[in-house]
């Protein structure tokens, strides 16, 4: 895959033919690995402290999971902002396709887990994330889309970049918090005006319901397949878009 060679740094023929070949000003490079290892010790230490100080809670678990997410996001330069912005701005859809793959894999896993709980007569986990379908969601998502491109990072991207040392994202994070408070303050109005009465639609319900009646297995499969189908269709479109050579139409 072309991607694999993208980030291998090298002192190859291009550099040799450039002004850099004479080995111009070389900053003395520090090796930061010792700092990284020290940080790792601190991370483990914090994990232990959280476990001991809050044995009944989830804080240690969430800390470790957060570390994992941060590590993965930074290592892969994963950027949801880029997945939405690049198709229009640069014509690239490689991140878009990766995001879609993440949706697909996670959908399958979540559905299996949810179905497992359901078929065992247990409450289905995570259903609070099946949010109301209302004008508020559309408006909010639109605002978020604008904000993340302007700020140079989405929610996860902002946190990642704070960890990478970007001062700009520190500012972005602060105002994200302020904006959240403002949003929370006005949430009551949105609730009364648009959200109340709006349906929370769980895809399997569109295919026959999850109320213990006969064809439930099919309803769940139907819901999952529908989700994957939408993802697949968007993936194909993204793939074709990304292969376009001529980009003149895009920027003017």
């Amino acid at each position: 895959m072309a991607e694999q060679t993208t980030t291998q740094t090298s002192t190859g023929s291009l550099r040799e033919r450039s002004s850099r070949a004479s080995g111009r000003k070389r900053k003395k490079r520090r090796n930061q690995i010792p700092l990284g290892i020290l940080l790792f010790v601190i991370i483990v230490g914090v994990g232990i402290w959280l476990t001991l100080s809050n044995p009944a809670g989830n804080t240690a678990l969430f800390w470790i999971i957060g570390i994992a997410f941060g590590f993965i996001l930074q290592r892969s330069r994963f950027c949801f902002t880029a997945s939405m912005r690049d198709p229009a701005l640069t014509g690239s859809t490689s991140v878009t396709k990766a995001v879609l793959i993440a949706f697909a894999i996670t959908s399958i896993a979540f559905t299996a887990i949810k179905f497992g709980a359901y078929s065992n007569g247990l409450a289905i986990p995570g259903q609070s994330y099946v949010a109301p379908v209302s004008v508020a969601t559309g408006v909010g998502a639109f605002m978020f889309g604008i904000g993340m491109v302007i700020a140079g990072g989405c929610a996860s991207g902002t946190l990642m970049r704070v960890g990478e040392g970007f001062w700009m994202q520190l500012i972005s994070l602060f105002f994200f918090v302020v904006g959240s408070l403002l949003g929370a303050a006005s949430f009551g109005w949105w609730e009364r005006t648009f959200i109340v009465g709006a349906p929370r639609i769980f895809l399997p319900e569109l295919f026959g319901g999850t109320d213990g009646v006969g064809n439930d297995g099919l309803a769940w499969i139907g819901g999952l397949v529908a989700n994957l189908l939408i993802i697949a269709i968007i993936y194909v479109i993204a793939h074709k878009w990304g292969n376009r050579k001529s980009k003149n139409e895009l920027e003017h």
Partner: protein
Amino acid sequence: MAKEVELDCMGEACPVPLIKTEKKLEELDAGDMLIVQVDHSCAMKNVPEWARKQGHNVEIEEVDDGEWEIFIEKV
């Protein structure tokens, strides 16, 4: 005579390095070399990826902690 042009994109937020690179490359002729300086981890991935997709020769060199130079030879 092949030109060598430097493009300093240090401190720029995503996706500014890539947009500036695209614009600058348009101004150059085939055979010219553009050296893009970035310190953004996204840019050290998406600039080479874009340039390679356009068919140019690309190399990256890490010149310091968190700083890269991207060599693009216009084809």
